[in-house]
């Protein structure tokens, strides 16, 4: 019974949070809403990267490549083929997922740095194709004149209105990822992360599940890109540099890999640091760099991460100086709740 209570309380908290999130544009000024929107965008892509790196333990450094594919697919669909945003969003994600599968297949047998390098290479190749294939992608000029979509006659342009599209997508992402993670597929991913030999001995096809994992991550990264295009009304390849990819990776790791809450915390901290210190000019990047290094020293498993995970390393416990209450590892509590509820039912 306790678990059920717990679940209800959690549902209530979530509902309140969602309502508060819906109210945000009315409370906050437009300039802050711009930051919030960029946080929302990063949330999806950081979450997607977390699915690949955190849940199945692969080393994908080239998430920006999928981001790029999604954004350009959307922009081209809208600009050249005059497809509506609402129809174009799924093909953008699917196309990124297909590219994800294409990248996953050759990297199946690779580990560590080789995998990191091949994904970095892929990300750069995607960006360079976008930069050089002028007839389709506009080359250095990018694609201009994208319009924010209409939602049943309501305009969605501008940060405080487009925010709702972002919010809905983030919620959708969380909802579906939470469900996938706690299903047979998610368990297979985690098994591969924790011990691939044991996973194999239980009949889990490493190849298949790594590909599915990559496709799922790439799908959401593509969606994140697809959302970016009409929001900015203009895209060019400069949005998808390697540094951007590294930034996203840093956000995920600061927050904590392998937890649903991790990327959220990471993205929020990082973005508020970058945007909030805008007055400091170049110095804010130094603050970010110091934050990254300090986090690795103090809490290598990330703010929301759990120190027992393989992702935190062997001697983590002595090294994690900042102790956070268990509440922050939402993922664990959710996992327990899931299986516990089924047990009662």
């Amino acid at each position, binding site marked *: 019974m306790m678990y059920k209570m717990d679940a209800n309380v959690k549902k209530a908290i979530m509902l309140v949070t969602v309502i508060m999130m819906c109210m945000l544009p009315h409370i906050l000024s437009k300039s802050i809403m711009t930051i919030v929107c960029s946080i929302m965008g990063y949330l999806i892509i950081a979450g997607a990267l977390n699915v690949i790196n955190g849940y199945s333990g692969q080393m994908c450094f080239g998430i920006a490549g999928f981001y790029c594919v999604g954004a350009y697919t959307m922009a081209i669909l809208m600009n050249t083929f005059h497809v509506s945003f609402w129809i174009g969003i799924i093909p953008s994600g699917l196309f990124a997922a297909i590219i994800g599968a294409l990248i996953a297949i050759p990297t199946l047998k690779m580990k560590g740095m080789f995998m990191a390098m091949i994904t970095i290479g892929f990300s750069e190749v995607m960006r360079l194709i976008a930069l050089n294939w002028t007839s389709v992608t506009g080359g250095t000029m990018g694609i201009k004149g994208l319009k924010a979509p209409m939602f049943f006659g309501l305009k969605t342009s501008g940060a405080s209105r487009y925010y709702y599209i972002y919010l809905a997508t983030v919620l959708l992402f969380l909802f579906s990822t939470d469900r996938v993670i706690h299903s047979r597929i998610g368990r297979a991913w985690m098994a591969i992360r924790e011990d691939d030999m044991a996973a194999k001995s239980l009949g889990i096809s490493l190849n298949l599940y790594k590909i599915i994992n990559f496709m799922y991550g790439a799908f959401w990264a593509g969606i994140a890109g697809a959302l970016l295009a009409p929001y900015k009304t203009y895209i060019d390849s400069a949005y998808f540099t390697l540094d951007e990819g590294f930034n996203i990776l840093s956000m995920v790791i600061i927050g904590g890999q392998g937890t649903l809450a991790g990327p959220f915390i990471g993205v929020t901290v990082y973005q508020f640091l970058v945007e909030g210190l805008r007055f400091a000019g170049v110095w804010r990047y*130094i603050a970010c760099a110091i934050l990254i290094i300090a986090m*690795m020293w103090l809490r290598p498993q990330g703010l929301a991460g759990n120190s027992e995970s393989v992702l935190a390393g062997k001697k983590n416990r002595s090294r994690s100086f900042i102790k956070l209450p268990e509440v922050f590892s939402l993922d664990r509590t959710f996992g327990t709740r899931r299986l516990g509820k089924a047990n009662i039912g």
Partner: protein
Amino acid sequence: MDGYLISQIVNGLCLGLIYALIALGVAVIIGIVGFATFTQGEIVMIGAYSSYYVFLWSGNNLIYGMIASFMITWIIGMILYKVCYAKFFDSPEYISLICTIGFSMLLKNLAQIIFGAEKKPMLNIIENKIYHLGIIELSRVQLMVFITVIVMVIILSLLFTRTSWGLKLKAVSQNREAAALVGINVDKTAMIGNCIGCAIAGAAGTLIGIYYQSAYATMGATLSMKAFTSATLGGLTSVPLAALGGILIGVTENIGIAFSSASFRDIFSFGFLIIMLIFKPTGFGRKRGARA
């Protein structure tokens, strides 16, 4: 057309030698410390800057410049080791990797603040003389880069295979616990390995500064990636193969450019890497990845 292709191949070789020069340091660091580094490009930049200021002070004395950049990057290497590697030998490899990304961000932006955003010209450090070998034209700097790469490969190979000190480094790279058990100061040895890698990059920075006739804060960004690509092609830990990888990438890039346009340069290098890794998942080397 043939002459054009040959000149492109020669250009590619020269560029490849520069990649090779930085890749050497990357291979040394991954080989000994066991961690990858994304800071190498910034070390190159620091090397270039330090020699720039020494050149200003000493009136373009190449030896002084080299020594200065070597020493300063050695010190940076020590700091880098303490910040990014020393604590993380028991952690997954991505943690130190993220640390090096943070460190490279730090160096890049600090350099921009300290040295300013504009390019520092490094003109006429070496007399610009051109040597003709048949149809091949080599400038003096290119020749120097070439000689440095060859000498470095030979010295490092000898160091790792022939000296007891090199054996120590090798032992540390293969098994830290066992190395500690036989009485090697693991921490110090790994740090020196890292410093060697960094100092090579620093010296490379001087040459690259002279080659491109300028030093600027973001000069390392693409070079770093190219060097890493070269080292990956060479199997990450092998010094001669990393040099070979660098040269191959340089040549591939320029042959590719010969048939298309210069803006496709990076597509060829990364495409080459991806295709090579698909067929040989561990690069040219036989050994598996450093810690993977």
